[in-house]
């Protein structure tokens, strides 16, 4: 039996005994290819997403296995994109999983020539310190005519247009409450 199985695993044997005498098809196929399946079938879950590049808004499906993204492709259900993606959208997997992604906070001290590490909590505290300081120094209570300004010109922000609406909402809300008005984004560019 073992010999038989061993023999059957030999394509030449299958060529001689099977339907593929020339050994160009069924006889030559190896077990791992016979068992081949798309990796998307191994996904633990599929998240519905939207391409982050241009504003067409192509829908994406994000396949996740073991908490890692294993594939991103177009969602054929979308009335906008019908599952299609351009080269940038098609490169989303690389965008998300590539080695260019930074994972750690980096800090460049004044006059430094290199980056150093900083932990996130500390960095947040330092940013808060600096925001409050810049806000103070740039504060304008009123203009030359005495009109109320109640604002700070000490800090500014320029946002990308790949931020979510919810994020933009909080950004504008927080800065407005702080009196910071030079809050801009790509739409001005």
């Amino acid at each position, binding site marked *: 039996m073992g010999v038989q199985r061993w023999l059957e695993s030999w394509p030449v044997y299958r060529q001689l005994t099977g339907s593929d005498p020339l050994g160009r098809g069924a006889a030559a196929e190896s077990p791992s290819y016979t068992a081949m399946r798309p990796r998307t079938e191994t996904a633990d879950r599929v998240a519905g997403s939207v391409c982050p590049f241009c504003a067409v808004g192509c829908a994406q499906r994000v396949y996740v296995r073991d908490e890692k993204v294993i594939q991103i492709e177009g969602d054929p259900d979308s009335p*906008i994109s019908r599952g299609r993606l351009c080269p940038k959208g098609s490169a989303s997997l690389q965008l998300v999983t590539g080695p*260019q992604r930074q994972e750690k906070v980096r800090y460049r001290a004044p006059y430094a020539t290199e980056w150093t590490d900083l932990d996130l909590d500390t960095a947040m505290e330092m940013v808060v310190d600096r925001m409050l300081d*810049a806000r103070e120094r740039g504060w304008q209570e009123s203009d030359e005519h005495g009109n109320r300004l109640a604002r700070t010109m000490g800090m500014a922000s320029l946002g990308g247009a790949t931020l979510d609406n919810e*994020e*933009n909402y*909080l950004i504008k809300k*927080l800065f407005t409450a702080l009196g910071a008005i030079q809050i801009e984004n790509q739409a001005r560019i």
Partner: protein
Amino acid sequence: MGSNMAEAHPVGFQWVVEAKSRGARVIHIDPRFTRTSALADTFVPLRAGTDIAFLGGVINHVLTHDLDFREYVRAYTNAAFLVAEGFEDTEDLDGLFSGYDAETGTYGRDLWQYESAEQARTEREGGEGGGDSAMDQERTSPMGHGAAGAPLSGTTGDIAQDPTLQHPRCVFQILKRHFSRYTPEMVERICGTLPGQFREVCEAWTANSNRERTTALVYSVGWTQHSVGAQYIRAGSILQLLLGNIGRPGGGVFALRGHASIQGSTDIPTLFNLLPGYLPMPTAGSHEDLPTYLDDLRSPTQKGYWAGADAYLVSLLKEYFGDNATEGNGYGFDWLPRINGDHGTYRTVMDMVDGKVFGYFLLGQNPAVGSAHGKLQRLGMANLDWLVVRDLAMIESATFWKDSPEVETGEIVPEMCRTEVFFFPAASHVEKEGTFTQTQRMLQWREKAVEPVGDQRSELWFFYHLGRMIRERLAGSTDPRDEPVQKLDWSYAVQGGGAWPEPSAQDVLRRINGYRTDTGEPVGGYTELAADGSTACGCWIYSGVFADGVNQAARRVAHAEQGPYDAEWGWTWPSNRRVLYNRASADPEGRPWSERKKLVWWDAEQGEWTGDDVPDFPKKTPPGFVPPEDATGPDALRGDDAFIMQADGKAWLFAPHGMLDGPLPTHYEPHESPARNLLYGQQGNPTRKVYGRLDNPSNPSPPEAHREVFPFVLTAARLTEHHTAGGMSRQLPYLAELQPELFVEVSPELARIRGLSHLGYAHVVTSRAAVEARVVVTDRMAPLRIDGEVVHQVWLPYHWGGSGLVTGDVVNDLLGVVTDANVFIQESKVATCDVRPGHRPRGAALTAMLAETRARAGVTIETGTTIATAAGVPHLQHTEESS
């Protein structure tokens, strides 16, 4: 026009290809033969920066040959309205409109108003003259979808009109006269477009615009990034209105926007002059308290939906400040900071250079590469106290202090650069949830697929916790300026535990949608918002996205399983409506203009508007409705007032309000142009912002001397294979390999003149910078004959910078900063330049070469700052004292 759809929006272009296969004709009008042109039926070349001349020509063709869709024009536009006496056109004033103030370079617009039958037009405008232009600027919204419509009071009946369209002061006749100079011959002389081709476009456009057929107009930043950018879109809109192509299926003016949620970031703006939903930021002096603000925003007696702007604003304040916003304290209106001028990103960067700004946040943005005048951007950043950069990858704007071009020239020395830089790794689009708003105003929800790793966080997390920490710091403060922070409603739901939980985007969206302050129940739409504090709503135009407590943006019903307008995929503002002003798809009597082009119509039996899309009209207002005298708001809309956000219910061929540089589009030459304006003495946009500073030099343009130093027209754009400043593409091997190197496209003719060879090196030179690129000699580029003179155009993609897998010079360094006065968007689609063979000089030699070039061109701080050149006004130079 002004769009390279196949390259910049390839997946959207599938619909164009599909339409073409069904017989649609595709015409591409652009300075350069692109991948879009390759698929078009007709490619029409024109000189960059002359689109208004071209469109004006088409408008003139339509008007002189009576080819407009007259029933549509008469019913739905302001063609019949009379403009008050005193209005003078560019025809009269050598390229200026009445009301120009040469001192400030602005218009007072009281002379552009309608003639009112009885009562005055707007009181404030009339009273103040030109003095309030700064205030008007702030109220003007970039890409304002009907917001800041004129606070005209009452009903259309108040405006004098001539339904025969014959009165010399009616809009139609004014339009006719205004565009009468835009003849095919003039189009040829200005644009370089040959009369045969121009006629072909005119005929195709008009023949395809009628009851049975509609024509769509697509534009992108090829239109907006000009010193006359807003008027480009106006010109397109006027033409589409004249031809009845607005509010109808297959028609429209499509702005193809370039970023995943750039529409969202204007709707819910991070823009200095806007609050969410195109509500203006309060202006110092003009908006001292809530009532004055609201009165300025809208008239309580105004017709249409903008009349409800008070409810939108109060609901926003209720969301901002929660229970702390009460009727007694004006709902916290006083806690809002005031603006009083240009606080746009370019102004801010110059303030950085001048040491007036201390800290800067860059949130997924890379101005060192992506903004005009890259050097100014980098020098600005080098003069900050601190800079926070949040991005997926290390970008040029984070590393400017060690590897920017200025380090090579010695203008930035790392050891002497003070700026403290924080780089925070950001979560990607699959590592956070939230909505993007795409180019057709559709919100689509993204689920979180995986958790970000390491220090990667969403902006939502970042700002939520900054807010939380700041509020904790300031909790005990008694300083009144800290009150807004203390009073802020920051009570967003969070997910997960610990000290640093992730805020719930869903909860933020729910509050953007709006809810009843008593029950917390989500509102169903903006019509339910009230000005009495009973509702809170973060963005009125998004109201309805969480209707019934359901995240409507997360709907993903397959397109195969629903109707033609796919109403159950995502959610489109306003009110999940796909086609704005779709009342105009039916005739004044409420019947579709044709069976083929039906969209919404009046169902007499049911007594309501119905159709394939959500009707953009009061549901129960019949077509023939005439409102009573005292009606206001939506109730005051006539049955044929299809443009429901406008105070007069009509689409504006002539804009009595809202535009700062003229009620009608006028061809002005770009700030940097090889040609004199052939239409008027006025060369460029007389209201453009020139920022005349030593660090922002301009190349000379006629009538200034020495334009021969920069003889060629420069234009820049995207490639399919890259994304803007490259932070999301040059870092990716699969994209970097597809377009690995910066190149400059030149015609064979220009190559011969300048001795350039294919794949050789060349450098493009302006008074700001020299950029080196590989030469691509291609038949796709062709010179044009402009008023008898041959003009060459060169093109570069602008995606490269110093970081990433593929690097190159920053094309945006070539540009200076000149902006449109309406929206403060820079003119980056056209400039002048020289092209020289070989590598550019490096280091000090580069600085010297640029200085020599500027000297040869006679460039000083004054160059380009004489913005008024028309006869009859003083020709003043608008320079700033540079520190």
